[in-house]
């Protein structure tokens, strides 16, 4: 019990920006489903079971269109392919987390990955439980935000324009933290540069897969020089 309480207390502050971001995006998503003609049960159950923001927005369009299950699957695989990168990076970190492992993998969204990979967990806090609570809190924020959006979204008056920037700000900070830790900045620069290049070439809807493919290709090409630098780190 004491171990869990300590881990929860350590994990919670790391998730506060995600609370702001997920409530904003979740409310938006719930409202979007509401105005598209779906009852609140849809965003509620979809945020609980899918737990992947961008694809959930796309699913609304899929549900309004013709019935193409295989296309829905292919589209999901493409949008979410970046999770493969998270999995590969977390193979070690999620080792020895026991029964929590399945849930940690289920909840491996952009934000859970970013926090769980970079957070400096204090030595007296159990890392497995820390990561579990980060994931659980993120899941809860997303679930509650989408449900509330579906229920009451149309009543909100407060001007929230620009609040979605909280996610960009968080990714910038996490990028910077990783940068300050790294001895070699080649992977970081490749990620930034190749993604930007692909965005310019393929536009917002089509850049993700080419960006990932080029990052993977160049990282493999540079394997022997980079591996030497990483090892001395």
């Amino acid at each position, binding site marked *: 019990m004491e171990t869990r309480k300590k881990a929860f207390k350590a994990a919670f502050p790391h998730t506060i920006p995600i609370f702001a971001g997920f409530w904003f995006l979740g409310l938006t998503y719930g409202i979007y489903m509401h105005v598209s003609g779906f009852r609140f049960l849809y965003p509620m159950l979809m945020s609980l079971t899918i737990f992947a923001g961008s694809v959930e927005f796309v699913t609304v369009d899929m549900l309004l269109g013709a019935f193409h299950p295989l296309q829905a*699957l*292919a589209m999901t695989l493409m949008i979410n392919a970046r999770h493969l990168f998270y999995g*590969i990076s977390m193979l070690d970190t999620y080792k020895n987390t026991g029964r929590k492992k399945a849930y940690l*993998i289920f909840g491996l969204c952009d934000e859970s990955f*970013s926090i769980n990979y970079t957070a400096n967990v204090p030595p007296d806090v159990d890392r497995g439980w820390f990561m579990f609570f980060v994931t659980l809190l993120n899941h809860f924020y997303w679930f509650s935000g989408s449900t509330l959006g579906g229920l009451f979204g149309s009543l909100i008056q407060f001007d929230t324009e620009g609040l979605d920037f909280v996610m960009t*700000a968080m990714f910038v900070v996490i*990028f910077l933290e990783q940068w300050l830790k790294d001895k070699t900045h080649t*992977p970081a620069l490749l*990620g930034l540069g190749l993604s930007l290049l692909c965005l310019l070439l393929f536009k917002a809807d089509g850049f993700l897969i080419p960006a990932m493919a080029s990052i993977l290709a160049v990282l493999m090409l540079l394997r022997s020089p980079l591996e030497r630098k990483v090892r001395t780190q």
Partner: protein
Amino acid sequence: MTFPQRIITILMVILGTMLTRFLPFLLFPAGKPTPKSIQYLGKVLPAAVFGLLVIYSLRNVSVLTGTHGLPELIAILVVVLLHLWKRQMLLSIAGGTVCYMLLVQFVF
């Protein structure tokens, strides 16, 4: 779309999402030694992916029209400077977001 068709579509999205999350762990189980190339990728991918996520979260910003991405650029600079100065995650994120909200609501 009928109700069962909706359910099937949603199940497909769940299946696709879970595949992308579980596949690496199924292919490289904890009990067996992970191939060297995958270990290497596990070390260099995160930094690259954080770069990808920054661009991904900015993907709908248009540099040629509207505000030309200026509010985003200014707010990112604020985030970076705040973070290099105080190294307090929450402060940097909140400061940058408030700055961005003020910019898009009152300035641009």
